[in-house]
């Protein structure tokens, strides 16, 4: 992936030098070998901080709304799934198209950093990564490792729909074929089959762990409300108590609030410190959207309206 990194830096440098953008948001090496961190580059000299590889899990489109009122234009590095966020933000009029330069990078999948860190010698530093189709090779100063995708990738990458960015001004790297490792809604279907009691017990167990740190909400690229209903104090809809009742309320509301706009980037699931399978909630909604309204994943094509934001006479009407 060295050539991708090289091209990425060159393109970013060019954009900054030609003053087409004032800021490039990309991935930089994090403080752990298997982690990257968002970097905000505002000068051509800074582009050497940019990197790319199988540790770029974050969805950087999240930050675009922070700069929607900034003077200059902003370039952002996106993977396939992140590009869906960009489309969704554009369709929601959260950002304007002429202020954003999308640098799309076809994505071979992202590894779960904790799983990788458990294998790699602590303190080793990263030299190079490469995509070998079914696995990634990771070269470090303490030896070389290989991680096969099926076991080490984030779950969302196992059912990836868009390895190639669906919107992009500058594409870096070769287009990649769509490759999935399991049925997209396999987990959801399995849970749907269970009895009401089992479903209830399953989610009670998950939600009871919630700390209500709101990482899932804050990391969400389509959570764009100025003041979130959960932060509102007048009236206070949900208190700061973390009991099962309020946690359940929070999670149902959060999931439903992004229904039809959630682009299935899986960030909520990744960032949860308590490992609550949040994506299973969002995926349920995706599955139903598909079943009921024949709606594709939001953001996967420009200009498709949110299924729940538009009425058509052919919509199923279970409640009439």
């Amino acid at each position: 992936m060295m050539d991708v990194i090289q091209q990425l830096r060159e393109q970013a440098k060019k954009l900054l030098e030609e003053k087409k953008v004032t800021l490039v948001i990309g991935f930089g090496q994090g403080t752990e070998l298997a982690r990257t961190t968002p970097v905000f580059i505002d000068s051509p000299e800074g582009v050497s901080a940019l990197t790319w590889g199988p540790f770029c899990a974050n969805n950087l489109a999240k930050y675009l709304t922070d700069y929607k009122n900034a003077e200059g234009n902003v370039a952002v590095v996106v993977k396939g799934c992140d590009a869906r966020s960009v489309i969704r933000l554009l369709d929601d009029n959260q950002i304007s198209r002429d202020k954003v330069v999308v640098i799309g990078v076809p994505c071979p999948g992202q590894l779960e950093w904790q799983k990788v860190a458990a294998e790699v010698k602590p303190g080793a530093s990263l030299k190079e990564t490469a995509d070998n189709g079914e696995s990634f090779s990771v070269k470090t100063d303490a030896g070389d490792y290989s991680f096969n995708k099926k076991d080490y990738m984030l779950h969302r990458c196992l059912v990836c729909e868009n390895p190639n960015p669906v919107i992009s001004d500058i594409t870096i790297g070769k287009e990649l074929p769509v490759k999935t490792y399991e049925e997209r809604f396999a987990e959801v279907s399995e849970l749907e089959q269970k009895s009401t009691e089992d479903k209830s017990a399953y989610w009670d167990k998950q939600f009871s762990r919630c700390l209500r740190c709101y990482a899932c909400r804050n990391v969400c690229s389509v959570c764009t409300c100025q003041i979130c209903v959960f932060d509102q104090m007048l009236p206070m809809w949900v208190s700061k108590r973390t009991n099962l009742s309020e946690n359940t309320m929070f999670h149902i509301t959060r999931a439903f609030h992004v229904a039809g706009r959630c682009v299935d980037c899986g960030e909520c699931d990744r960032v949860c410190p308590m490992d609550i399978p949040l994506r299973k909630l969002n995926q349920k909604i995706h599955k139903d959207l598909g079943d009921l309204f024949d709606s594709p994943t939001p953001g996967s094509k420009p200009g498709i309206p949110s299924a729940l934001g538009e009425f058509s006479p052919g919509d199923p009407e279970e409640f009439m």
Partner: protein
Amino acid sequence: MLKRLLEYVGFEPGRFQARWISGSEGAKFTTTIKDMTEKIKSLGPNKKMRDDIV
């Protein structure tokens, strides 16, 4: 959608219902409420999201 989501997290089917009833549909309103009351009674007390203070 919400109905499906609620059932997915473990609410009993029928605990949550939505109906579109116009102001002129008095009879439909009565039957809906009757059905709903019967349904709820048959389901018994709600077990989800019971409020415990802490």
